[in-house]
Structures are given as C-alpha cells and as structure tokens.
C-alpha cells in the first residue's frame, strides 16, 4: 500500500475553503495556529489576550476570504501573521501600555512540543529554556524583534520585510543578524543552556 501523503499547499486550501470546504480551513488553522499565536504572544505577553487576538485574526481572515477579497499574491502564512501582528500592535495602542518586560506565566498554556520520550525533569528544563528565550526575545530592541518575528514566525522574505518596514534589504538583514547575535549573548549572559546538537529531537 502506498502510504505517501502529499501536503496540500496553503493556496489550494484557501481555494477549497472559499469553495465551501470547511475541512480545508481546519487544516489551515492547524497548520498556522502556533506561529500566529507566538507572533501575538511575543507582543502582548499574556496568554489569554493572545488567544482572544488569535481568534480575531482568523475571524478577520475568514471574512476576507469569504468575501472574495483575499489577494493570492504572497504567502498565506505571511498574510495571516501580518494581520496578527497589526492586531497585536493595535491592542497595545488601545491599551496605552508600554511594552514592559513581564515574566511569563505558562501554567495555563498547553504547549504541544513533542516531548513524549523525555523525562518529566527534562521536559521542565526544556520548557523553562523556551519560556526564558521568549522573555529574551521581548527584551530585544523593537526594530530587531520586529524583523525576527516577521522572518522567523511570519515567514516573510527579507525583501518583503524591507518593503513593509521601509528600510533597505541590507538594513533588514543587519537587524536580523543583530537580533540573533543579541539573543545568543543574552542566553550566555543568563546562563541558559541549550542542546547544541542540531539534529536532536
């Protein structure tokens, strides 16, 4: 029996959804929910607010797709993460909150990383490392954090980021480079240990 499965493209799923196939939308949501949620969470820093804005993001996307206003140029992942990013920024402006650094309370958040073969202790260490990394991302200068989120989580190309932020591609690349270098330094400064094996699960 042939067990090979072909991954349907986002573009095809959008077309199927517009044509009335609800299961296509479910696939799109499940495929992108974590990156969209992380994009929002890194801005608002609160799990419940992030979930509310995640719902608003997809509801906005639903209306755009269903009303025939979805522009097929560009990637779905970039588009949906841009909506999320804009809603999260709007939320900040409405709340008139400055981006304060707050400790993350992950106790109510289900995290679906694949830890099934790890011990409870190593799971906790991994989750602590990831939570501290998310905190460190929030301490990056705004321009660096923005590029990092657009490239890493929204999967925008560097040219798209340059266009969206009104800078040259070299500036966007430089910001990304400094973001990664700064994260590395901050991890060393905070004694955050991480697995240095690129190929481990």
């Amino acid at each position, binding site marked *: 029996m042939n067990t090979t499965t072909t991954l349907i493209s986002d573009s095809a799923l959008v077309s199927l959804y517009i044509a009335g196939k609800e299961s296509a*939308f479910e696939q799109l949501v499940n495929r992108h929910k974590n990156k969209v949620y992380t994009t929002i969470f890194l801005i608002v820093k609160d799990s419940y607010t992030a979930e509310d804005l995640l719902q608003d993001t997809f509801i906005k996307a639903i209306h755009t797709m269903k009303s025939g206003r979805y522009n097929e140029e560009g990637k779905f992942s970039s588009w949906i993460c841009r909506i999320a990013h804009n809603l999260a920024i709007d939320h900040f402006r409405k709340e008139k909150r400055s981006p304060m650094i707050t400790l993350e309370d992950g106790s109510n958040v289900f995290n679906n990383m694949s830890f099934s073969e790890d011990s409870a202790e190593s799971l906790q260490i991994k989750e602590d490392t990831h939570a501290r990394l998310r905190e460190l991302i929030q301490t990056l200068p705004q321009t660096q954090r923005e590029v990092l989120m657009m490239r890493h989580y929204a999967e925008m190309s560097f040219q798209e980021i340059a266009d969206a932020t009104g800078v040259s591609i070299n500036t966007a690349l430089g910001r990304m480079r400094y973001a990664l270098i700064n994260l590395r330094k901050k991890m060393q400064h905070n004694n955050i240990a991480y697995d240095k094996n690129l190929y481990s699960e």
Partner: protein
Amino acid sequence: MIKTSTQNELIQYVYDDLADDAYEQLEGALVQDMELADSCAELLLIQKLLDEAVKAPRQHAINNILNYSKRLSLQS
C-alpha cells in the same frame, strides 16, 4: 573576520532566502572557511531553538474559530 556582506548572506542562507548563484558560492566558502562554518552552525542552533520556543494556544480557542467559520457558512 567575516565581512558584513558575507554575514548577511549567511542569514539569508539559513533562512533559505538566497539567490541560487550566491547560494552555491556560499556553500563553497563554508567548506573552506571554518570561522564561517562555525557562524553558520551557531545561527542554525538559534534558529532551531526559536522553532522549539513556539507556543500553542488552547484547543478551546481553536474550536471557537472553527465553529465561527461553520456558523458563517450555514448562514450564507
């Protein structure tokens, strides 16, 4: 000392955002330049960690989204 332009290309390389000809040129340089290869490995490690640090929303929030879409479809 790695040139800034090469460091920028390295960023594009690990994010698969480099033009084909520059891609091949950089891969050639990575084989010969240990400092460049070390920098590349560092970037890949941080990239991997950033992937792992992705958070997931609760299923309740996802169900709300899917139910909203279904309700809208039934109305139209």
